[in-house]
């Protein structure tokens, strides 16, 4: 994993996007750093991890927090991690909507604006979705989508 710390400007830009889109405050990332790797990947790590990442060329560090291309795509891990700080563009799913998404089907909602959204069931953030019009697609990776019968 070849990675470098986000520059001050890049970090500020990332935090601004997360605040504007989801209402996530910068304080949610206190004592943490963002590292950028290939293919626009951005990892969230503890600040004490950084010297080890620089010196050991590890396979991975922390978790994949986002991908930055033309727009910022937050990962399911990131939205779950700071779920209790998300205030905007969050969609509260019914049980039927959750099950639809979990089977990789689309569902519909009039909440939130187009773009990446945070999906919630009860007060639990289940991950990232993509809203276009009234259609929502889950961005939760297939490997994380396990059958859920108790919710």
């Amino acid at each position, binding site marked *: 994993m070849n990675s470098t710390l986000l520059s001050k400007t890049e970090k500020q830009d990332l935090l601004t996007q997360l605040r504007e889109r989801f209402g996530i405050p910068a304080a949610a990332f206190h004592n*943490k750093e963002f590292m950028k790797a290939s293919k626009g990947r951005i990892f969230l790590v*503890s600040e*004490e991890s950084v010297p*080890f*990442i620089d010196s050991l060329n590890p*396979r991975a*560090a*922390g978790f*994949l927090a986002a991908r930055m291309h033309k727009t910022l795509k937050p990962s399911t891990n990131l939205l779950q991690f700071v779920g209790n700080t998300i205030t905007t563009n969050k969609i509260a799913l019914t049980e039927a909507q959750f099950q639809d998404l979990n089977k990789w089907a689309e569902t519909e909602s009039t909440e939130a604006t187009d773009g990446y959204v945070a999906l919630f069931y009860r007060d639990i953030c289940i991950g990232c979705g993509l809203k276009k019009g009234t259609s929502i697609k889950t961005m939760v990776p297939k490997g994380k989508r396990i059958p859920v019968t108790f919710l």
Partner: protein
Amino acid sequence: MTFPKPFIERYNSLVDDPEAFFRALETPLPKSFRVNPLKGNRNQIRTQFEQYGFGITSVPWYEDAFVSDTPNIGATIEHFTGQIYIQELASMLPPLAIRNDLKYGKLLDLAAAPGSKTTQAACLMNNRGVILANDSDYLRTSALRFNIEKQGVVNTVVTNFDARTLRLPEPFPVVLLDAPCSSEGTIRKNPAVLRQWSERLIQTVSTLQKQLITNAYNLTAPGGVLLYSTCTFAPEENEGVVQQLLDTTEATLERVRFQSLQTSPGIEAWRGTPFPGLKHAIRVWPHRTNTDGFFLAKIRKP
């Protein structure tokens, strides 16, 4: 369940109550899990599970651990989102044995995959500091990465080095070696272990473990702690490995206690080989604790 004859002979002579021991090995394990405080709230999850109709029992020696009367905890939204981690109770012991030492904020986990103890240690460190989580098996580091991500752990750096020869720029104050072993202690959840069991396997794994513990000790800082553990009963993989380290270095063993958990001290000898320094090690027997079998030794480097 059919036990190999040498297995029966070996443990008839080692265990305090062989009949209860073999009966326990044939009894299914209770389903246990721990709450991941990085993502979930212990009381809320307990309440929610009770609303699902699950019978949930607290574990007296670990506030985040629970036993469930249903096997369905893997089908909950709490598991889906990483708020809980399904883990056998005895396997939660190694991070707890070094809980106070984790305050130093640096842990080297030499055989980390698939990550149950790594992610538990991250919880005990409140996601601060750094855990160097190494595993020599490249494929198993994928499972390790998956679990780290799912649990929301940010303080872990995953490497893929041979732990027998690993060199680091500086030693660590806390090192965990949950060594690869013959896994006899996991027979209750994985009876297939018995099909691969042999005295030769024990000897082969023991040789590897001695190489691993030697380098683990080299990677431990002066004044630091090395926690050696296995999920097996074989003295050659437990007391025999630690005794060799004590015989060849200045290392000492520290006593570990778990309140309300019935453990036994390490054994004093096996097949003519004495283990004079091992009384402070801990053995966890399935027929005493209704868990998997486990061995722990907390080693201090002067």
